[in-house]
């Protein structure tokens, strides 16, 4: 009976949570306009305009020193912008109330290492204003979620780098946040740890949490993010849905018995960067829908088509291309 009641109660809570997240979902989780941060002479973030829809996993990508961490710090109220507007969950991040529904794993994950893991989560839970009762269940649950249940009574000074990063991740989820900022959450983790973080992100997303993720591990980003923004020198140079981005960059290889100029001309209309190499031809197309068109074209020209291979360009390649190209027009 007790169990039933618990489940019932839990159900109610989840529903309440859902309702809350739906309410939050009607507005973007984050929006910034012309955000700028200068440190003396250094311009860390130049002119950042960004909208992060609620409920998505948002990847924030860019080379070292692009201003990613500085942006997160502005969004968490750690750093005051030199200019521009920020709104996080509809509020100004400088206000304590705005942080009640956010979680944060900093890039430099250093914590009070004289605390034991359990104490660390309890103290930070109290700072979130959670009741002791709630923490009694929440702390063990989170320790288990980051596979640290066996180290609950170990001092953080005895933790390895990866363990610290995981306890930091647990700390960012104490308050069942609506929005979580993860600044390179897998930088210190082994492959198992990275998978764990990926699972945690998936779970958070299922609960309706918005996730803002900085990472250089693009294969991770590719697997987890719904949307990515590329930033360079403190400006967003491009924002895309992950699926669009990966599809758009479809590279098609074909092998034909001959490649007359008419083929190249026809392909030019269907895609870009057509390259003919003997009887092998490659081009980039913007949509997978183009692939059958290519087949039809070769038929119309009376050519024999031996191979037609749509390949997928990895996010890493896209990243390099985008970052190395100055202007936005001639991407990919």
């Amino acid at each position, binding site marked *: 009976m007790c169990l039933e009641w618990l489940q019932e109660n839990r159900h109610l809570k989840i529903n309440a949570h859902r309702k809350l997240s739906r309410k939050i979902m009607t507005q973007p989780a984050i929006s910034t306009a012309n955000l700028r941060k200068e440190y003396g002479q250094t311009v860390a973030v130049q002119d950042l305009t960004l909208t992060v829809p609620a409920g998505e996993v948002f990847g924030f990508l860019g080379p070292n020193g692009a201003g990613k961490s500085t942006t997160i710090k502005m969004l968490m109220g*750690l750093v*005051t912008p030199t200019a521009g507007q920020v709104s996080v969950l509809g509020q100004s991040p400088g206000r304590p109330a705005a*942080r009640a529904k956010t979680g*944060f794993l*900093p890039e430099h994950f*250093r914590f*009070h290492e*004289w605390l034991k893991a359990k104490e660390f989560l309890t103290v*930070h839970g109290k700072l979130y*204003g959670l009741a002791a009762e709630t923490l009694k269940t929440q702390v063990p649950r989170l320790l288990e979620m980051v596979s640290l249940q066996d180290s609950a009574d170990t001092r953080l000074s005895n933790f390895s780098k990866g363990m610290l990063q995981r306890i930091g991740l647990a700390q960012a989820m104490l308050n069942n946040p609506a929005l979580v900022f993860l600044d390179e959450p897998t930088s210190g983790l082994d492959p198992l740890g990275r998978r764990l973080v990926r699972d945690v992100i998936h779970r958070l997303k299922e609960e309706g949490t918005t996730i803002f993720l900085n990472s250089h591990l693009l294969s991770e980003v590719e697997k987890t993010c719904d949307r990515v923004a590329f930033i360079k020198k403190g400006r967003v140079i491009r924002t895309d849905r992950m699926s669009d981005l990966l599809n758009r960059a479809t590279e098609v290889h074909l092998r034909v018995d001959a490649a007359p100029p008419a083929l190249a001309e026809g392909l030019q209309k269907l895609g870009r960067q057509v390259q003919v190499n003997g009887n092998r031809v490659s081009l980039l197309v913007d949509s997978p829908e183009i692939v059958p068109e290519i087949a039809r074209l070769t038929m119309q020209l009376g050519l024999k088509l031996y191979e037609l291979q749509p390949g997928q360009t990895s996010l890493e390649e896209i990243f390099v291309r985008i970052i190395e190209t100055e202007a936005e027009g001639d991407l990919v």
Partner: protein
Amino acid sequence: MSLLTITSLTFREAWRKKLFWVALGLGLAFLALFAVGFHYVLVDILAHPPGEARTGPGMKIFISQISGIFLILGLFAVNFLVVMMSALTSAGAIAGEISSHTIQTLVTKPIPRWHIVLGKWLGQSVMLVIYVIFMAGGLTLVVYFRTGYFPPNPAAGMSLLVLEGLIVLSIATFGGTFLPTMANGVLVFMLYGIAFAGSWVEQIGAALKSETAVQVGIIASLIMPSETMWRMASDLMQPKLIQEAAFPLISLYSKPSQAMIVYAVGYLLVFLMAAVYVFERRDL
């Protein structure tokens, strides 16, 4: 309340970093040393008492005089320790957390930043009060149990010692909001040096009737009023006889006015508010 969470975190840190045991252990060693030294000096002096102490009542006055002087000398050392302890424990309290980035997980919680500043300050203040009661109270009891001498105004005197420590704490709290630990420590000790030197300049100036020297000393005590608190404490806690004997270390030629207490409280509040102001606005 989150301010008190920070305060209790400060206690736990002191405990875990063994500050408590070291302070207790060495404090006991200090008290023991004092007790032994006091005992043997008494034995020595009583073996060859001066002429006026040969009678019963004369002896009693003589013993309380010796006890009073000894206690003030012990308190002089405690006053030093209070300043050192306050400075050393607080110089890095905020500065260290900023440089190690541990501050980032604290200030991104839904709490106002001033809770962190005042929470830490409160924790250190409570520890300071305990330290003063333990050390100054310990000395007083050692003397009392050995000779039956009890100083005048013990509570007021100890409160002034606490106030002295609080001044140091507040300066270090302020410095820690924008200086690295080491520079902050240097700031606090240099200010203490100014106060210390100023106090002597004032005393010697008063003895030599040099108006200018007294002025210089007063200005120094306005820049940093901590040493003045000690002088007022020692003045309160010694019997009139010592003051007449003009013992150079501990008696006062030039007495600070009571208004200095008000000034000192205002002084530390200003530093605390400045600490909050700077910390609320700085990038972390």
